[in-house]
């Protein structure tokens, strides 16, 4: 931790050593950043607010995945399906049973978390590629269950229309209002994740990731902590799913397909596994990349008219794939590592020796 500290900053007690925000400058930057974020919708277009809402929801799911995959070293290829579990729990409770969104949100987190515990059980016996296959099963089983078990409740393959969240008569019925619902939750989840990884549980996660045998020898109950990591990961997915449902106001199973699980994992990789800020960077980077791909289509259509119809179809996934490959080869520690390097160079300033 000390390596990130600006030059001349020393801790005088444990409280200072434990603090997430350490210096006046950091407090100032945090306040300015939050003020900027929360005033952003005033001077942004509807499209930008929509993009930020999308990033906010995705970030919640990615933070969860980062705790499981990045910190605990357990691969999860079914995060989108756990989002689906949260989305459908919230959607069904609010649309079919008239439950308030504010009750449905924690319920969806718990349901997704419990499902995570069930599908996390194989992690007690298997790991690596085999665990990936097991979570892949979760991806298919959950979606299949949504479609087939109670289509009268879920709508099957058709969309389930979900009501907007309300506080009294105040409805979160546009992007602007949803921003003020999604962003605080995304920030809280990020804050929770940041704190979690500094607790005993967080350190146990890292120990399991680095060497589970050694962790067990040290007295860490690896079963408990593996399941805890699964639970937290999927609770986050459940929250993201619930927000997604009420943001989109309609959900269908194909939204939560395998490709979305892969994209979420890609965000963790690009951001840097095992880094809270990396999850933020990765989410923003990939979502903005998607926008760039969209913006490039007219340019490509102008330069290569014959390709316009076909190349644009593939542009976004092509960019995504290239970015993943480049990051894995050139910067496996992700954007977070680049950010670390930047901070270290700042720390040494003006004594760059």
């Amino acid at each position, binding site marked *: 931790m000390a390596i990130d500290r600006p030059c001349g900053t020393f801790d005088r007690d444990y409280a200072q050593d434990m603090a997430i925000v350490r210096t006046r400058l950091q407090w100032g930057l945090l*306040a300015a950043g939050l003020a900027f974020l929360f*005033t952003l919708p*005033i001077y942004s277009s*509807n*499209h930008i*607010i929509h993009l930020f809402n999308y990033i906010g929801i995705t970030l919640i799911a990615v933070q969860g995945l980062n705790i499981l995959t990045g910190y605990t070293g357990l691969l999860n290829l079914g995060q989108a399906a756990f989002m689906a579990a949260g989305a459908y729990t919230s959607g069904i409770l609010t649309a079919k049973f008239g439950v308030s969104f504010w009750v449905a949100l924690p319920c969806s987190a718990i349901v997704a978390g419990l499902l995570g515990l069930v599908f996390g059980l194989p992690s007690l016996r298997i790991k690596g590629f085999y665990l990936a296959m097991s979570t892949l099963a979760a991806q298919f089983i959950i979606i299949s269950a949504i479609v087939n078990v109670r289509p009268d409740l879920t709508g099957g393959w058709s969309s389930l229309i979900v009501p907007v969240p309300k506080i009294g008569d105040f409805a979160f019925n546009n992007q602007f209002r949803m921003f003020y619902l999604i962003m605080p939750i995304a920030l809280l989840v990020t804050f929770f994740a940041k704190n979690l990884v500094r607790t005993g549980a967080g350190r146990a996660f890292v120990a399991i990731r680095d060497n589970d045998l050694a962790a067990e020898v040290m007295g860490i109950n690896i079963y408990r902590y593996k399941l805890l990591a699964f639970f937290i990961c999927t609770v986050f997915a459940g929250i993201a799913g619930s927000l997604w449902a009420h943001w*989109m106001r309609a959900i269908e199973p194909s*939204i939560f397909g395998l490709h979305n699980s892969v994209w979420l994992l890609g965000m963790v990789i690009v951001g840097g596994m095992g880094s809270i800020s990396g999850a933020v960077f990765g989410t923003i980077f990939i979502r903005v990349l998607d926008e760039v791909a969209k913006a490039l*289509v007219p340019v490509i259509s102008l330069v290569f008219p014959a390709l316009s119809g076909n190349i*644009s179809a593939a542009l976004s996934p092509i960019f995504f794939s290239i970015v993943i490959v480049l990051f894995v080869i050139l910067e496996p520690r992700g954007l977070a590592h680049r950010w670390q390097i930047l901070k270290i160079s700042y720390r040494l300033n003006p004594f760059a020796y």
Partner: protein
Amino acid sequence: MIKRISRFAWVVALVLVALTLALSCAPKEQVTPAGKKPTEIWLRGSAAMTGIYAASLLPAAEAIKEAVDLINTERGGIDGVPWKVELLDDAGDVAKATATYEQLKVKEPRANMMVFMTTSGVAEALRERFNEDKICVMLPSGSATAIYPAGNTFCIVISHPDGFGFFIDWLAETQPKPVKLGLLNWDSTFGRSIMTDECTNYAKSKGVDIVATELFGIREMDLTTQLTKIKNAGATWVFTNTLGFGTVTVLKSVDALGLKGKMNFAGGHFAMDYDVLRVAEALTEGFVGPHSMVTWDEADNPYVAERRKAFDAAERPDSYRAQPFLVFKGWMTYVADIHEAAIEEVGWENLDAEAFKAQIVKTKDLKLPWTILNYSADKPETNWARMVQFKGGKVLPITDWRKAPDLRPAQYKK
């Protein structure tokens, strides 16, 4: 500790102030100044121009642009105002489509009517927003969830369930009973839209037994297992609610099993298009389905003759010779007529979605050169169709126009 709490309190206070400021400065609904005749009128919308449906829907988007250009050239736009079109890509993805819609709905001058050439899932997801934002939307077709209860969304093609009912009527009238039917649908909102109680019960009431129902994934290429199951269930007819490459996949699997000639095959409206014919002409012979529009092969229809001439003159790629380039000029002409009728009735100053809706629901059994349209306040989809057949590399009608049965979900019937 106290210092930390006080810092935290400062941050919270700042955030609260920012939040209050933000909410008090919330952008108001943008309203186009009403009253005067504008200098241009916009038709906005989105299409799945990329993604797996792009092969069918990119030409559709191009066809809309071409049709609007033609209307501007031929009749000087709408009430003398140039008509402009802006279609964005939504890739058939709900999140992207919502983003696209959010972009479009606030654009000035406001478009009170939009067109969406996209997937059933997108149409379902956006339905409530169309109603809330008071925007009238036209779709080619949609699932029941996308259009019911009737709101601001209208379709120009019979719905998938009604189309299926139309096919059942034809089957019951022309085939010896009992007819044993197998369903082979895409495992998607679109594919499953005919797997409703209304459809099943209607088939039964007409003496058609649905003996097997099989599904397949959109990316699945081998359907021999599903077809074998349908055959073993004793089906003599197979109906597939798919389009384009989905229908081709069915036909190729039929060929692989050597079932051609041993069983009969049919598909929904969108299966009966030229993209299927182009890819698998030899396999399509005899394939039938309900269809709401004229086809490129009805050369004696003056509208079709004119479109054929224009298509050839524009030297479009052969891959564009599908329904959109044939019928969208007619569709856009109808939309332009609706605009002009609404303007005449309420004036430019009151031109809004309600004015458009009022005109659309007045459309009763309207015979147009390319289709027959029929709308009502509680049924925002047309219900006229014919059975057509792939025959000798052509799509030819085998029945006259008639109304399809009403198979919308029971709760939406008045």
